[in-house]
């Protein structure tokens, strides 16, 4: 069973690359049920991620902020895996493009099934960048 350590081993993985991995103290992510904060020795859990911001506070160094595009989260024995088809770190996000995308999606709201998804995606990106600036 979990050796009672006080850090989490986190892996943030996109379909085509390993985005971030390392030891962390807190992971905050949004599942389709709402926000979850994961501290060491969290109970094993498997849940689906929403299109939203992920915050990882590593043991050393600055906070890692990223957006996930769906995917899922699994926690077991102080191992946290965050998987998503697309993961963008805050420093990789193009904010202007996200704002443009947000406007485009808002116009199409109601006529396009994807619009809600696109809005959530763009908003998550903008929020991630803002958080990154303040961090």
């Amino acid at each position: 069973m979990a050796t009672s350590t006080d850090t989490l081993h986190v892996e943030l993985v996109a379909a085509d690359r390993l985005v971030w991995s390392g030891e962390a103290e807190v992971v905050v992510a949004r599942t389709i049920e709402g926000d979850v904060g994961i501290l060491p020795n969290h109970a094993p859990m498997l849940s689906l991620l929403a299109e939203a911001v992920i915050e990882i506070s590593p043991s050393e160094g600055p906070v890692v902020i990223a957006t996930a595009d769906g995917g899922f989260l699994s926690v077991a024995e102080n191992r946290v895996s965050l998987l998503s088809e697309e993961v963008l770190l805050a420093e990789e996000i193009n904010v202007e493009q996200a704002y443009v995308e947000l406007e485009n999606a808002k116009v199409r709201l109601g006529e396009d099934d994807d619009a809600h998804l696109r809005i959530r995606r763009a908003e998550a990106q903008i929020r991630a960048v803002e958080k990154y600036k303040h961090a």
Partner: protein
Amino acid sequence: MAVSLREYRARIKSTESMKKITRAMELIAASRIIKAQQRAQAAAPYARELTRAVSALATYSNVEHALTTEPENPTRAAVLVVTSDRGLAGAYSSSVLREADGLVEKLKAEGKEVDLYVTGRKGEAYFKFRGRPVAQSWTGFSDQPTYEAAKEIGALLIDVFLQGAEAEKAAKPAVDEVHVVFTRFQSMLVQKPTAVRLLPLEVVEGVDAPEEQDILPLYEFEPSAEEVLDGLLPQYVQSRIWFALLQAAASELAARQRAMKAATDNADELINKLTRIANQARQAGITQEISEIVGGVNALADANSAND
């Protein structure tokens, strides 16, 4: 003699320029294959974590899901054949197509109808030439597949599979099984065409039977095991297809590199041979000219001495 010498020289020249082309293709394939292998490696963590989660789900919950349920009477199967867009890769495409044909024969012998789904222009052309209908084909990414492509293919295949229970309202006929035929990259020298069944899913891969002393984590599923499974399994299927596409890309490049290396070596050999023949022809020409001159001089000398 002089004419054939010119011909030989022309052939040497054309072989040389052909050699330059095959050599360039060999080098391009060699450099791309490293990239393809790196991409396959980069995709490994995702596949690993996904497999881990799916097997956790399969082990700790007894939820039945449409994607994992065996249909009672399978009557129709879909086969996804992964081939290349371009030729000049030796037996790459033909061996994967042969494997696919074998699988199709086997499925037909079991009394199932087969729908073909093809990626790559070579496969498309193969079935078109033989007048065999292809349900859907995708082209243009065989040596550098994108995840979007895998996602699109996966979504369509899941779609035709899940229709099985419902009405035949969609464009493509529903299927009870989905198979994939692709080339597995084992090493630079060995690439093996492989056929695997994708759906219904068998999630046992890479999971050892839990040992008794290991206390398995009892997962909480949020919001529920069914919903997590709903979200997870399609991603798992897509990741399997992505894996197949990446393996096929690496295999295609390895096969091309090998074929082009053989072509370059053959061109070298041909140039050597032709150079030798050309030299012989040149020498023969010179010898003939000398004997003609000597003969002419002798004839002149004879004529002069006769006049004197």
